[in-house]
């Protein structure tokens, strides 16, 4: 009824191979973009941006990055926190060393540096597979956090060992430091989200993405039909780390402003992003957004219900949150191993036939 392909004819190759071939999807996509760019910035205040939109957007980038590695290429990584830290510290060093260069370039270069580090730690994936690789990426996590804690050069010899973002502008608007405006930071992050989702979506449906998926499904078979595992795995690590580095840079510079590496980019962060893509859906860009939204909203919703309505102590609510997140992961894996994205796909199938049963 609402969602159908009937009457939607492609008359050129370009139309046939576009990202959203179904009209309804395409218009929905344009509508979401329109709302996000032209409506939301005029409606938000500081609270909304800082507690909902910024974490959602930044985690969405990280989730897209990790999803490329885990969901598309099948290489499980527990080093996300460490790679985010690389992005954050690279951005910090760039911001303080070259104050006049645009933030846009700093964040992108931070992504490139993280990609290089990611490739370095991705090298063992050629020999090590499965769980062994997951554990090997822990080496990256712990080593990187230790490095940023112990080498004073990374935090510019500051007494506290923290890094804090100096004031920087983008197109004349303050986006880091103390005097920022909510809508400016929101739009700056949104720009990167749109860029990441666009690049990721088009990479994963092109030849690179197909190679990743071949490696994921069975690497030996993929190798036999001519996929180069070295290139496929390392490009997956590079692209994934690039996005994770961008999200780390934004997380530090725009969202938090000051960072203590062990607290912010610890192993918990790696698991959080991993949970996002499990709940959202492995191997789906939409799933990365859904998972990020879900795990950003859940604590806020729980806090409102538990602390504000029921008046429970915050520590009990925090523990309940652990129970609920853990329980949800198990429920999702049992009921729907492909996550929220699969629910969305099923809903679309149903909508296509509605109001008829078959």
């Amino acid at each position, binding site marked *: 009824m609402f969602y159908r392909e009937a009457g939607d004819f492609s008359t050129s190759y370009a139309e046939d191979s576009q990202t959203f071939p179904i009209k309804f999807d395409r218009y929905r996509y344009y509508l979401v973009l329109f709302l996000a760019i032209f409506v939301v910035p005029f409606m938000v205040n500081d609270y909304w941006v800082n507690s909902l939109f910024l974490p959602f957007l930044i985690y969405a980038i990280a989730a897209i990055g990790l999803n490329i590695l885990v969901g598309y290429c099948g290489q*499980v990584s527990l080093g996300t926190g460490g790679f985010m830290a690389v992005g954050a510290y690279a951005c910090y060093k760039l911001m303080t060393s070259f104050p006049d260069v645009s933030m846009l370039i700093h964040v992108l270069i931070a992504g490139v540096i993280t990609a290089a580090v990611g490739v370095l730690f991705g090298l*063992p994936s050629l*020999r*090590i*597979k*499965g*769980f*062994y690789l*997951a*554990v*090997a990426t*822990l*080496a990256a996590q*712990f*080593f990187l*956090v*230790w490095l940023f*804690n*112990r*080498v004073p050069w990374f935090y510019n010899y500051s007494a506290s060992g923290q890094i804090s973002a100096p004031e920087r502008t983008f197109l004349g608007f303050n986006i880091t430091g103390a005097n920022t405006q909510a809508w400016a930071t929101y739009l700056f992050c949104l720009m990167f989200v749109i860029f990441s989702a666009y690049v990721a979506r088009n990479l994963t449906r092109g030849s690179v993405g197909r190679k990743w998926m071949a490696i994921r499904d*069975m690497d*030996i*078979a993929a190798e*036999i039909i001519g996929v180069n595992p070295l290139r496929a795995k390392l490009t997956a690590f590079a692209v994934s780390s690039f996005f994770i580095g961008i999200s780390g840079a934004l997380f530090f510079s725009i969202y938090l402003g000051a960072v203590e590496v062990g607290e912010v980019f610890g*192993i918990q962060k790696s*698991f959080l992003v*991993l*949970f996002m893509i*499990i709940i959202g859906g492995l191997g789906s860009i939409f799933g990365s957004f859904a998972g990020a939204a879900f795990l950003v909203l859940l604590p806020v919703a729980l806090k409102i219900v538990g602390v504000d309505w*029921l*008046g*429970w*102590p915050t*520590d*009990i609510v925090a*523990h*309940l*949150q*652990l*129970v*609920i*997140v*853990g*329980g*949800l*992961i*198990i429920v999702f*894996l*049992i009921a729907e*191993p492909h996550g929220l994205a699969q629910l969305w796909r099923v809903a679309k199938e149903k909508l296509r036939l509605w109001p008829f049963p078959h």
Partner: protein
Amino acid sequence: MPEQLAFTIEVFLNGLMAGVLYALVALGFVLIYKASGIFNYAQGVMALFAALTLAGIVDGQVPFSHLINAIFGTDVHHFGWNVPAFVAILLTMVVMIGLAYAVQRLVFRHLVGQEPIILFMATIGLAYFLEGVGDLMWGSDIKSIDVGLPQGLNMWIDETTFNALGYGFFIDNLDIVASIIAALLVVGLVLFAQYTKQGRAMRAVADDHQAALSVGVSLNFIWILVWSLAGFVALVAGIMWGTKSGVQFSLSLIALKALPVLMLGGFTSIPGAIVGGLIIGVGEKLFEFLIGAPFLGGATENWFAYMLALIFLVFRPQGLFGEKIIERV
């Protein structure tokens, strides 16, 4: 004997003792992995949960008292009695068996035949769940466990070595007891696996699920048995670590330390877990003492084990004692 050498030997010995405790946690991993192919990330949290439960029972705390107080506005905290340590350990074991049953029944029964990585992620979810439940049940404050294990400096070794070598070795009594218990546990497990009916059934399941099923071994029962055994090992590890450094969240992080131990030793080998634990324990203490602290600014223990395992795996992907990985299309 030169001072530096004596120090190094002492660090070596302390590393051995720490390695025994890592090995204890790794042992629980190996048990479950061998029997069901599940890589149980929750093993560390199980140790934490067991230790919390033990401490709570000994103190006579009311389970979920904070939650009950928050919901009903009551003020219950303790039953007002203290349970003797031995009884409390038995009760905790009952709780761990109940947990094993629940985990098998509610979670992994529904995930039979899924890919290993899905099972692994389910255990991460389980770890979060258990951690939350443990905190809700017994509160998140740091507790101490005292089940009567000896603690403190072993005077006898100190004096003997001082008289003989001119340098007194500092070795904790608790570490010695822990090593003895770990050794007993391993011998016990090996005997159990070799000579009892259930143990043989367990090995059969580990060898081939389908074949075991077809000769009448109940997979459900064996899996519950294995999770209970892992719960028991977790309890022992929880008591050791809890006595040593208090029951707190960081206890569950030893699970992360047990991972490189497993990688070194191989996921499927019980002796591998022990040897791997000892290598990691000694390696990280010696590295910290000889290279980390003087040259790298210290705290290298955080990552040394992972790096060692990573470098090692590049040359031998199945670990020291693991079964050779054969890949087929």
